[in-house]
C-alpha cells in the first residue's frame, strides 16, 4: 500500500471519529446544562477549553455564550477542529482514497457533508439541535458500519483502525481531564455534590453510561468512572481497549514492531494510574503525559509508514 494512501486513511478515520465525538459532546452538553443547579457555573466555554482552542476562540468572539461556543465548535471554518472542518477534511481524505475504500463510503460522506452544511443552523439554534446532531452521529456510525462490514482486514483497514483508536483515546483523556477540572471548580464554588452530574456527563460523552452500569454495578463515582474509562478491558472506548486495539493493528503491518514498545509503555502507565483522587495533581499529570505520548506515537506512525523510503542502494 502506498505510504500516502496509508496516511490519508489514518486521517480519514481520525477526522470521522472527531466529527462523531464533537457532535456527541455538544449533544450531551445540551442535556447536561438542564440538569445542573443554577448556581453551578459550568459553562459552554468548557467545550472550547476541552479542545484547547481558547486562543483561537478569543480571536474570533468576544462573548463566551452558548451561541458563540456552539457556532465555534460545530460550524466555524476558521476553527480547524470544528465539526464542519473535520467533516470537510474527512471528505477530502475519502475523496483521495476512493480507490481503497468501499464505493459507498464516498457517497455517504458526501451526503453527510451536504446535509451538515445545509442544516448547520439547526445545530446552532437550540430547537432542532438534538435532531441535527443525532443525524450526524448516526451517519458517522453508518459509515463506520459500512467499512466494518465490507472491508478486507488488510493494511487499509489497519490504518483506519489505528487512526480511529488514537482519536478515541485522545478524546477520552480530554473528557477525563475536563471532568477533573469541573469537579475542582464545582467544589470550590459550592458544597453540593455535583460529582454525579459531572461524571455521568463524562460517561455519556463517551457513550459509556450503560456499559458502566452493567460492568461496575455501582453508582457513579469519580474514581469508578476514571477506572472504567481508563482501564476497562472490554469497553471499546476505554483507553486500555483503544491502545490494545491499536497494538493489534500495528502488529499486522510491516515494520509494526517499531511502535509496539511505545504503545506498551502507555498501556503500563494507564494500568498503574492512581485513580483514588481525581482532583489530585497526580491524576491530571498522568492525563497530560498520556496526551504527550499520543503526540509522540502519532509522530512515530509518520516516520514508520507515511514517509517511509529505503535509501538508494549504492
Amino acid at each position, binding site marked *: *500500500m*502506498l505510504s500516502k494512501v496509508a496516511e490519508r486513511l489514518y486521517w480519514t478515520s481520525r477526522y470521522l471519529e472527531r466529527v462523531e465525538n464533537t457532535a456527541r459532546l455538544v449533544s450531551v452538553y445540551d442535556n447536561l446544562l438542564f440538569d445542573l443547579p443554577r448556581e453551578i457555573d459550568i459553562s459552554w466555554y468548557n467545550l472550547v477549553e476541552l479542545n484547547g482552542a481558547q486562543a483561537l476562540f478569543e480571536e474570533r468572539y468576544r462573548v463566551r455564550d452558548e451561541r458563540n461556543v456552539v457556532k465555534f465548535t460545530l460550524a466555524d471554518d476558521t476553527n480547524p477542529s470544528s465539526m464542519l472542518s473535520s467533516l470537510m477534511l474527512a471528505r477530502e481524505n475519502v475523496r*483521495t482514497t476512493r480507490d481503497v475504500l468501499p464505493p459507498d463510503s*464516498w*457517497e455517504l460522506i*458526501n451526503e453527510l457533508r451536504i446535509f451538515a452544511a445545509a442544516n448547520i443552523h439547526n445545530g446552532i439554534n437550540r430547537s432542532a439541535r438534538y435532531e441535527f446532531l443525532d443525524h450526524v452521529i448516526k451517519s458517522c456510525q453508518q459509515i463506520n458500519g459500512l467499512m466494518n462490514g465490507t472491508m478486507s482486514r488488510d493494511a487499509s483497514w489497519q490504518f483506519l483502525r489505528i487512526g480511529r483508536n488514537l482519536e478515541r483515546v485522545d478524546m477520552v483523556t480530554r473528557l477525563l481531564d475536563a471532568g477533573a477540572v469541573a469537579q475542582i471548580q464545582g467544589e470550590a464554588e459550592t458544597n453540593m455534590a455535583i460529582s454525579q452530574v459531572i461524571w455521568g456527563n463524562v460517561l455519556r460523552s463517551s457513550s459509556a453510561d450503560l456499559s458502566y452500569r452493567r460492568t461496575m454495578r455501582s453508582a457513579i463515582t469519580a474514581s469508578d468512572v476514571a477506572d472504567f474509562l481508563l482501564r476497562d478491558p472490554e469497553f471499546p472506548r476505554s483507553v486500555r481497549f483503544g491502545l490494545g486495539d491499536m497494538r493489534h493493528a500495528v502488529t499486522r503491518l*510491516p515494520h509494526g514492531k517499531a511502535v509496539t514498545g511505545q504503545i506498551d509503555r502507555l498501556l503500563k502507565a494507564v494500568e498503574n494510574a492512581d485513580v483514588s483522587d481525581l482532583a489530585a495533581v497526580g491524576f491530571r499529570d498522568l492525563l497530560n503525559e498520556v496526551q504527550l505520548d499520543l503526540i509522540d506515537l502519532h509522530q512515530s506512525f509518520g516516520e514508520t509508514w507515511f514517509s*517511509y523510503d529505503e535509501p538508494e542502494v549504492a
Partner: protein
Amino acid sequence: MSIDWKQYDPNGFFDELIASPGEARHPAGPLIDYLSELDAKELEARRQMAEATIQEMGVSFTVYTEGGNIDRAWPFDIVPRVIGAKQWKRAEQGLRQRLKALNMFIDDLYNDQQIIKDGVVPAHIIEKSKNFRRECIGMKPAYGVWAHICGTDLVRDGDGEFYVLEDNLRVPSGVSYMLENRAITKRVLPELFERKDIKPVHNYPARLFDTLVAISPRRVKRPEIVVLTPGIYNSAYFEHAFLAQQMGVELVEGSDLVVGDDDCVYMRTIAGRERVDVIYRRIDDMFLDPDVFHKDSVLGVPGLMRAWRAGNVALANAPGAGVADDKVVYAYVPEIIRYYLNEKPRIANVKTYLCDDPEQQAYVLDHLDELVVKPANESGGYGMLIGPHSTKKEQAQFARLIKENPRNYIAQPTLSLSTAPTLVSKGKVEPRHLDLRPFILQAKDTYVTNGGLTRVALRKGSLVVNSSQGGGSKDTWIVNGEE
C-alpha cells in the same frame, strides 16, 4: 401537461430520437412512449432526482478559474440518446479498423518510416509536429501498439451518418462519466431498464485492466499496475480515482514513484519500495519525466523515460503516441488505412482542408465565414474559429494566423451536428446539438465501448459540447432495432 412530440422541431437537423413531427425513430420508440406518459411535474421530479444523485455520488469535474479551482457537479440531461445496434456495429467496426491503422502508423513513424518513404504522407508531418518525440525513435512497444486507450470523437451530420471529428490518442478523458451516466439513469428512470436490450457498459474497467495487464513487460501472475494522476487539482481527477478504484489498482502521483539505479520503477509503500510494471498515465508527455521533457515538471518521475526505454515498465499510452493526434495527420487517416490495411475506410472523416497546401489555403481564406478553423494540436475546443458565428475582426485575425503558420491550421465545413431532445426547463424539451465519444482499447485484443460518452451543447443553437465550456452529457443506449 406531458411532452407534445408533435411540437418538437429539430429545425432541419438530424434528430437522434425523433424522425418526423410526433414520430420516434424505431430504436427510440419505447423511450419516447415512456416519456410521453410523464407529465411536466414528474419530469421535473426526475430531473431533480438526477441532480441530487449526482451530488451524492460526488460526480464532479474541476473548472479552472482565476479565483481558484471550482469543483462543479457534472451537468447531466436525463433524456437518454438511443442508437440502433446495427448502425452502431458499423461504427464500431470502423473504429477498430481506424485504431489498428493508426497504431501501425505510429509504430512505423518511430521505426522504418516506410509510409513517408513511399510518399503516402509528407515528411513534414513529423518534422513539424509538436507531438513527435525523438526520444521514442526505435522503440517497439508490445503488439506494436502505442495508443492503448483512445477516445474518438464522432458526430452525425445531416445525413445521419457517423463521421470521425478527431482521434484523441494522448490522454482522452470522459469514460468515467459514461459509466456514471448509466448509473444515474438506472436510478432516475428505472422502469426503462425493464427492457432487456439496452447494452451494458459496465465492463469497461475490467477490459481496461486486461489491456494493461497484457502489456506488462514482466510475465508475472499479478503485474503491479498503477494509474498516474497529476493530482487532485486536475480537472479529470475524479475519473483517475474512479478508474483506479474500479480496477482495484493504486492511484499514484509522481512523488509516489521513483526510478532506481536498475532502471526499474518503484512505488513508495508502507513496506518499502515495490516494483511497478504498467503505468496508465494521465499526464501529458511533456510532464512525464523532468530529466527528458519539461525540467521543472513536478508531476512526473525523474528517470521514467529511461525505465521505459529499457523495457522495464510499460506506459499507456506510450509517449509519442500523440503524433497521430495531430489534425493534419487526421486529414491523411483515410490514406493511412488504405496503406496499412489495404481496406476502404469504414467510417468517414469530415472533409478537411490543409492550410499548408496553397490551393486549399486559398479556399479556406476565401471561405472563413463558412468554415471551422482549428489549430492542429489543441484539444478541449480552444483556439478555434467558428466561421458562421465569427466577426470580421476574428476572421481577419485567423487569416493572419494561417498565413504565418499554415502547418498549424486545418479547416472543416461547419457540420450540421445532430440533435436530441433535451430537458431545458420545467418539463420542456427542446433539441440540442451533440457528439459522441466512444472509447477504444487496444493491446492484444481490441475493445470498443457500447456507445460512449454523449456530450450535449446545453445552450440553444450552440455547437460547443466541451464540459469546460457549457456542455452537458447524456446516457447513451445501444439498443436492438433499426431506424
